[in-house]
């Protein structure tokens, strides 16, 4: 199997050279950190990825979780990994010192996750979900809850989940029916069904802590009636013992990929003894849950980019070694065959992959930086970075998910028939990557979120800030030799985006359905423009570095960056023209189409 799954050089380029993660140490929350620490953390993550996770990448796919007598059995690596991530401090890494965390910048934990995901996506989600669930308790739980759950979750002994989906309520969370009935004792009695709950049960942890959405009896309809509960599989009694909490595992689903992690169907309160503990105030659950969902959406983008990264390096290794055919310019059939990487079309496929992988990773680290700044800044700056993060979250979830899938497909294509066979990891990457446009809000839902909500929040303030950020890079590129053409192209693309946005927003008051009919295409357009901006930022830094006339591997690296930037601006950015044309039409084709038109 291919050894390399991420580029350490590229990660460090983005973290240190493009996004200046060291600059965060100016803020008191991060003042104990520095380059040396970050390097050691990345180094450890790479080693864990390589030694602990990558080795079982295929094995976990071939031996998926089993449902045995009401419990889920998983690969033994899960327990080891939960322990390593717990004892190593990875699960609680971002939390403040008081809670046992390390106040690690989100940028660094995001980079570490990228490494873990690329090494073995299925395995990495167990500690990740635990981090997210614990963070929710940290943000909105009572002191008692924090003391009870967080240490066990941070240490990896207890698994955390997010339990939202129900058979009749996937995208439409306002339709959940799981009920919570208040009791005299303060807790609630939970009754209902949850499906597709990742890591909802397994024998790699000693307990499972569900962060669950339910409706308190008599709550208003819609999203305003949803509350958030902690529902443990085993509930801790005051004397410290753990007793079963009437959470039954009804089964697991058999899925296309990402097979190392189970998704479970849960039945709650069959014996009327499932206790839930309210987090925060009643009826505010969805807004709390959005903290975890937004973080998870960035992580999904990261997972998608990471799988595409592993697929890219496997394809690259193969393309360098596979002799097939001869250069079109050479006329002599007696010459040996050339490695396929010499064919322009194979180079194009590799460039496409690199453009998607590095472009997505840049966007995700940009978002992580906004999250860090929002966390440590005050006032207007805090609001600015919070709004930018909000706006870009659906983009950072979707571009890597949708394009990562195409990228892995191109990686598989580089291997020809071998790519389709399981001796090589590409077919698994292809299956594993398919989840990302679905979970944590489908692409369709992200489109609605971007156009219907994010672009218009605070009177369009987030969108205005976004334009400002991108134009900042455009201005720098205009003043940089070799990048002025790219600056012009990106400015042109921004103007098209503004034009399309203004056109669509005009439709909003009249007919919301017409306004949002092509929201997914709008998201696609937004994604391409945004990643072009990220490529321009990388090109700016690469040009600057090349001014210093570096040698050897450094020169190759920066030149490779500039070539990939050129690829993006020449091959990918022009694709927005078709999208813009369609988006400006708004003829309501899909709005007016009827069910009967599809039948035959």
């Amino acid at each position, binding site marked *: 199997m291919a050894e*390399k799954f991420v580029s350490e050089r590229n990660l460090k380029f983005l973290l240190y050279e493009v996004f200046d993660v060291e600059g965060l140490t100016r803020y008191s929350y991060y003042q104990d950190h520095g380059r040396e*620490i970050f390097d*050691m953390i990345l180094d450890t993550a790479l080693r*864990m990825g390589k030694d602990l996770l990558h080795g079982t990448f295929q094995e976990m796919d071939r031996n998926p979780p089993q449902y045995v007598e009401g419990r889920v059995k998983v690969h033994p690596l899960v327990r080891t990994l939960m322990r390593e991530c717990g004892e190593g401090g990875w699960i609680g890494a971002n939390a403040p010192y008081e809670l046992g965390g390390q106040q690690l910048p989100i940028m660094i934990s995001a980079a570490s996750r990228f490494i873990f995901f690329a090494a073995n996506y299925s395995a990495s989600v167990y500690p990740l979900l635990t981090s997210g669930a614990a963070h929710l308790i940290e943000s909105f739980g009572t002191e008692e809850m924090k003391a009870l759950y967080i240490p066990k979750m941070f240490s990896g002994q207890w698994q955390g989940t997010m339990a939202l989906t129900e058979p009749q309520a996937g995208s439409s969370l306002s339709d959940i029916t799981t009920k919570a009935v208040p009791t005299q004792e303060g807790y609630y009695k939970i009754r209902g069904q949850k499906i597709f709950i990742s890591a909802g049960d397994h024998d790699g942890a000693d307990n499972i802590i569900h962060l669950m959405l339910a409706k308190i009896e008599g709550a208003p309809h819609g999203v305003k009636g949803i509350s958030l509960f902690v529902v443990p599989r085993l509930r801790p009694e005051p004397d410290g013992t753990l007793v079963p909490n009437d959470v039954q595992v009804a089964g697991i689903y058999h899925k296309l990929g990402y097979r190392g992690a189970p998704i479970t169907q849960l039945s709650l309160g069959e014996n009327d003894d499932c206790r839930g503990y309210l987090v925060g105030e009643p009826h505010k659950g969805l807004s709390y849950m959005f903290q975890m969902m937004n973080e998870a959406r960035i992580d999904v983008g990261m997972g998608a980019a990471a799988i595409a990264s592993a697929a890219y390096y496997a394809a690259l290794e193969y393309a360098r070694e596979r002799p097939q055919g001869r250069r079109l310019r050479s006329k002599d059939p007696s010459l040996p065959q050339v490695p396929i990487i010499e064919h322009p079309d194979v180079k194009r496929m590799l460039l496409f992959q690199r453009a998607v992988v590095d472009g997505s990773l840049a966007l995700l680290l940009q978002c992580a930086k906004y999250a860090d700044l929002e966390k440590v800044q005050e006032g207007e700056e805090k609001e600015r970075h919070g709004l930018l993060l909000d706006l870009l979250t659906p983009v950072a979830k979707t571009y890597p998910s949708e394009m990562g899938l195409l990228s892995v497909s191109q990686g598989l294509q580089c291997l020809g028939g071998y790519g389709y066979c399981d001796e090589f990891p590409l077919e698994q990457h292809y299956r594993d990557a398919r989840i990302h446009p679905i979970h944590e809000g489908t692409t369709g839902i992200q489109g609605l979120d971007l156009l219907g909500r994010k672009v218009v929040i605070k009177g369009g303030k987030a969108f205005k800030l976004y334009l400002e950020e991108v134009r900042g890079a455009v201005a720098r590129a205009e003043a940089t030799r070799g990048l002025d053409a790219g600056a012009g192209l990106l400015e042109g693309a921004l103007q098209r985006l503004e034009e399309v946005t203004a056109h669509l927003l005009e439709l909003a008051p009249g007919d919301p359905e017409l306004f949002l009919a092509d929201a997914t295409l709008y998201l696609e357009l937004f994604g391409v423009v945004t990643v072009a901006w990220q490529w321009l930022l990388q090109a700016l830094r690469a040009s600057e570095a090349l001014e210093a006339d570096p040698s050897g591997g450094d020169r190759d690296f920066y030149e490779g960056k500039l070539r990939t930037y050129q690829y993006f601006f020449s091959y990918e950015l022009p694709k927005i023209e078709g999208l813009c044309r369609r988006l400006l039409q708004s003829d309501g084709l899909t709005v007016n189409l009827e069910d009967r038109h599809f039948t035959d």
Partner: protein
Amino acid sequence: MNIIVLLKQVPDTETQIKIAPDGKSIVTDDIKWIMNPYDEFGVEEALRIKEKFGGEVTVVGLGPKRVTESIRTALAMGADKGILITDDALEGSDSLAVAKAITAAVKDLDYDLIFTGQRGIDDDMGVVGASVAELLGIPNISLGIKVEISEDQKTVTVNRPVEGQTLVIESSLPALITAQKGLNEPRYASLPGIMKAKRKPLEEKSLADLGLDASEFGTEARKVKILELTPPPERAAGKIIEGETPQEKAAELARLLHEEAKVL
């Protein structure tokens, strides 16, 4: 129990090694440097003994400033102190000179045990551990795959593999043990460990600080001289043995081993 671990920084096994234009050294520009994996077993073993008996673990490295990174990694794993022997005059020293410098740095420390890797994965010489033991006048036990300290902390028992058997060696303390693969599974540095490592003491010592004469070190003073480096020969393509039955294939294999490979 106070324990010293000697560590070397070496190129990552995945690094593509290129021979420098002088034909006698390697290009170091794009190398990723790591702690010598055998030394890492030594660090891990030292930490386990410390966890059981108490005491301090001091890691000692030698080389350019970048070696600090590997010492910090050992500190992040849980070691207490670091010493880096660094001096421009050391550049190009052979194993014996390295052993001399290390001996000067550790001889006055208070120690019960010294660990180091059985060899460095870069030069594969395997000389430093034994030389340091000799220069310090303490027992040297090589290739340890199991180390046990007696309850009274006066002796150590070490298992050493020999030709498929195990030799069990007992020694008085202090002693030097070189670590072999199989001794343990080194831990990963933890995030809290990494944060703490920054605040742990790490001393730098030059040859002058150690009271050593710079002219005895470096390329010029080498007793072992490198004349030439050549890359290993390219591996030739493999051969698939044809045949209808296992017997036929075995006969063909025997013939090839005899006539072509000339090993039988």
